[in-house]
């Protein structure tokens, strides 16, 4: 038999000024199963809380209704007091007599009546509350960082420095990401490699970080605190322990004409290679698709010249399982290539290049040793045109968003060009200059005012070649949309930043959501920019949307803190207000019929498939199962389930139904 205690708070006079608390108390005491009702001036004060605790013990209460302010204010307070009184904290409910009653109504009969209705409703609800136990989940204190660009590096170092193990997986042979390709960085024009490489080395040497380069995450199972990742370590055809990184194999490899990815196709590399001299780890891999031995079965020059006999042609991919408690996704972004722009030359015009190619041209370690020379004939361009928003903010091409970084890097490119080719002219076609950031706008102004970059507001319609020159047909919209034609030697497209190829598949493997542009989706656009909808998986850097270096690093540190917070306890405790599918003994097992229509409804991928098998392994029944590690308790699946087989603790069907009935009927 339920024994409910009702505690009516005056909140000074905040409630009692318009609600006749005495009358509410009297009405409450007459409600069925109310064993005790009292009123007090400040229920949240220490004596007020003691009143609750003592009453629980004294009156052997089985449920508590504190009729005071909003539960959003003091529910934790009174649940704690209830627990201290020896009752399960989830057997305490609050009736909101202040924000929803005394403060919004005038003093009078109707206000008091409403207060009584509210109290009665919560009394009926609390009778049906269950003694819930917090959900405890063990936490594996190791983090998986996917992607070894600047965001992944930052996240990995921050987590490792908190004393936790980190496993970093990088798809290419070296970490460093796009940042390692950059020449200088805005808005300070310091050398990218100079600030990045020390951190790359730190990753390699950190005792808490295990680096798997040339590896990919194939599968991720489990849930927050308890993930198992399957990692494919692609065969490098190399015994990494034996290799000393002397580089002899690289110089001797006869296959030398493979377009160099790191140089954005503007240089060549052999089949056995390290992507760039400062690569980490600085050990070569054999690109099987282009290696003569793998193609024709003959060659083995590298094996012959290797002084330590480190080449392993028979090496196979290795797939390993790692257990981690959290995942940071930092897979970065890609850019649209010049061939995305038929009107600018279909990628057939050699001197129409993209921003990353320009970075390599401007880089001291690049194919031209930092000289700006155009790809077609190696001449120094006297007239250069930069086209901003090439692909970005272009719904017709399927990209409606602003890529955010192009305004800044275009200004940087123009500036670098002017610094290197003093006599040259740099023109920038732009639509808007978006340079919000510390010292950003000053940087753009410097390009215009000090380096005399010619900024023209308008888009380019077409670029075509004539006598080795590029004719750029644009417009100056600030001069009444006057057509502008520039005869240029080179054109640089600030192409849109896009999701990495394979981002969608990875998102599916990780069970995190992604947006229509295949960028990973944050859990909340404002308040959870680092979290994904899957608990325990966090985002860092440009895999979420195009970002510059400072933003990527900040977000990476944010993600690291989320991971560190998660790892600060050995067990994860969660409010047990989660959904559950009913279960019974055989032969019914559950009323769930396994239509799985609830699955797509769940924003957290918390609904799994459970198969009940007979002793001989035959599936007797398939039914939905809620992973309470993932469920956040929104209850959308509950309302959707036709057979009412799912229910939500704290807001069960019985509870909410009773609330409706109790609110509308006097008992």
């Amino acid at each position, binding site marked *: 038999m339920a024994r409910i205690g009702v505690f009516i708070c005056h909140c000074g006079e905040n409630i009692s000024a318009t609600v006749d608390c005495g009358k509410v108390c009297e009405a409450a005491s007459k409600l069925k199963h109310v064993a005790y009702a009292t009123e007090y001036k400040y229920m949240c004060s220490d004596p007020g809380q003691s009143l609750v605790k003592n009453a629980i013990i004294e009156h052997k209460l089985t449920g508590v209704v504190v009729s005071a302010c909003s539960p959003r204010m003091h529910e934790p307070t009174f649940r704690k007091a209830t627990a201290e009184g020896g009752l399960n904290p989830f057997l305490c409910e609050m009736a909101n007599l202040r924000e929803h009653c005394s403060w919004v109504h005038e003093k009078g009969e109707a206000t008091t009546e409403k207060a009584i209705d509210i109290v009665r409703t919560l009394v009926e609800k609390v009778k049906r509350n269950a003694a819930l136990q917090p959900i405890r989940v063990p936490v594996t204190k190791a983090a998986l960082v996917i992607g070894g660009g600047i965001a992944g590096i930052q996240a990995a170092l921050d987590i490792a420095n908190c004393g936790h193990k980190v496993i970093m997986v990088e798809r290419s042979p070296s970490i460093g990401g796009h940042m390692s390709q950059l020449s200088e960085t805005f808005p300070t024009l310091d050398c990218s490699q100079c600030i990045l490489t020390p951190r790359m080395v730190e990753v390699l040497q950190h005792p808490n970080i295990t680096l798997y380069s040339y590896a990919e995450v194939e599968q991720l199972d489990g849930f927050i605190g308890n993930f198992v990742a399957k990692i494919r370590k692609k065969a490098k055809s190399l015994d990494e322990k034996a290799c000393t990184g002397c580089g002899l194999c690289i110089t001797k490899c006869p296959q030398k004409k493979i377009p160099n990815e790191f140089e954005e196709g503007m240089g060549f590399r052999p089949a056995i290679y390290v992507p760039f001299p400062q690569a980490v780890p600085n050990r070569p891999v054999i690109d099987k698709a282009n290696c003569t031995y793998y193609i024709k079965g003959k060659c083995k020059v590298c094996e012959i010249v290797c002084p330590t006999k480190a080449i392993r042609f028979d090496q196979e991919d290795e797939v390993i399982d790692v257990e981690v408690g959290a995942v940071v996704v930092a897979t970065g972004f890609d850019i649209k290539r010049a061939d995305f722009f038929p*009107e600018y030359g279909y990628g057939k015009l050699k001197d129409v290049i993209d921003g990353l190619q320009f970075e390599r041209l401007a880089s001291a370690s690049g194919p031209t040793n930092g000289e700006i020379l155009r790809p077609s004939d190696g001449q120094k361009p006297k007239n250069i045109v930069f086209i901003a928003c090439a692909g970005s903010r272009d719904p017709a091409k399927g990209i409606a968003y602003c890529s955010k970084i192009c305004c800044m890097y275009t200004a940087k490119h123009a500036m670098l060009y002017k610094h290197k080719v003093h006599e040259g002219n740099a023109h920038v076609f732009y639509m808007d200059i978006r340079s919000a950031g510390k010292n950003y706008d000053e940087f753009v102004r410097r390009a215009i005012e000090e380096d005399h970059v010619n900024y023209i507001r308008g888009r380019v319609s077409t670029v075509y070649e004539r006598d080795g020159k590029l004719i750029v047909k644009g417009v100056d919209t600030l001069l009444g949309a006057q057509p502008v034609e520039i005869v240029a030697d080179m054109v640089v497209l600030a192409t849109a930043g896009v999701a990495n190829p394979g981002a969608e598949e990875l998102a599916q493997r990780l069970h995190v959501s992604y947006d229509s542009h295949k960028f990973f989706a944050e859990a909340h656009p404002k308040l959870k920019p680092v979290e994904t909808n899957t608990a325990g998986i966090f985002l860092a850097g440009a895999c979420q949307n195009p970002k510059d270096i400072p933003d990527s690093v900040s977000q990476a540190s944010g993600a690291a803190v989320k991971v560190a917070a998660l790892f600060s306890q050995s067990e994860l405790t969660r409010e047990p207000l989660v959904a559950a599918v009913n279960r019974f003994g055989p032969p019914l097992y559950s009323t769930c019929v396994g239509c799985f229509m609830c699955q797509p409804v769940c924003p957290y991928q918390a609904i799994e498939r459970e198969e009940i098998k007979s002793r001989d392994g035959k599936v007797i029944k398939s039914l939905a199962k809620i992973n309470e590690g993932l469920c956040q308790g929104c209850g959308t699946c509950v309302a959707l389930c036709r057979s009412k087989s799912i229910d939500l603790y704290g807001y069960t069907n019985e509870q909410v139904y009773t609330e409706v009935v109790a609110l509308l009927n006097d008992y």
Partner: protein
Amino acid sequence: MSHSDHHIERNSLAAKVEKEVEVKAQKCYQCGKCSAGCPVAEDMDFPPSMVLRMLQTELPANDEKILKSHSIWLCVTCEMCLTRCPMEIDIPSMMDYLRQKSRSEGKANPKAKNIIAFHKSFLSSIKHTGRLFELGLIIDYKRQSLNLFQDAGLAPKMISRGKLHFMPEKLKDMAHIAKIFKNTSK
């Protein structure tokens, strides 16, 4: 209370363009790519992106300027603007509408006299013969535009090459064509 309830009855030219040819001027963010690629932009008083900007203001003075502009008559419907417009704004359809509107309100730019005279001669040729009678078209155009000596040397050369007929080729069912013209004259 809802945001959609706040619709004010708009009576601007932009609103009419939106209603009649489903072209939303507000979509234009003034990148100018249309003007950059337009073959006749440099001859126009207002290049296409300017026309869109003027529409966006929804000011009667600008609406008036558009309808009285030379630009709308110079547009040759080459469709380059639409092809390259990042917002896929159908400028050619919009121009068609503006031309018709300009003429029905008697606001056609005097500089476009020849262009309009040509179009009118063209249609009247079809109206009378069902097909284009080129010699008739030229004679009628000269009459309408008063450019009596234009292209004087062209016709004899065409005739000598068998490219100009002296008699129009008439349709059998001319009554049908007449009916179509009647049914579409507003």
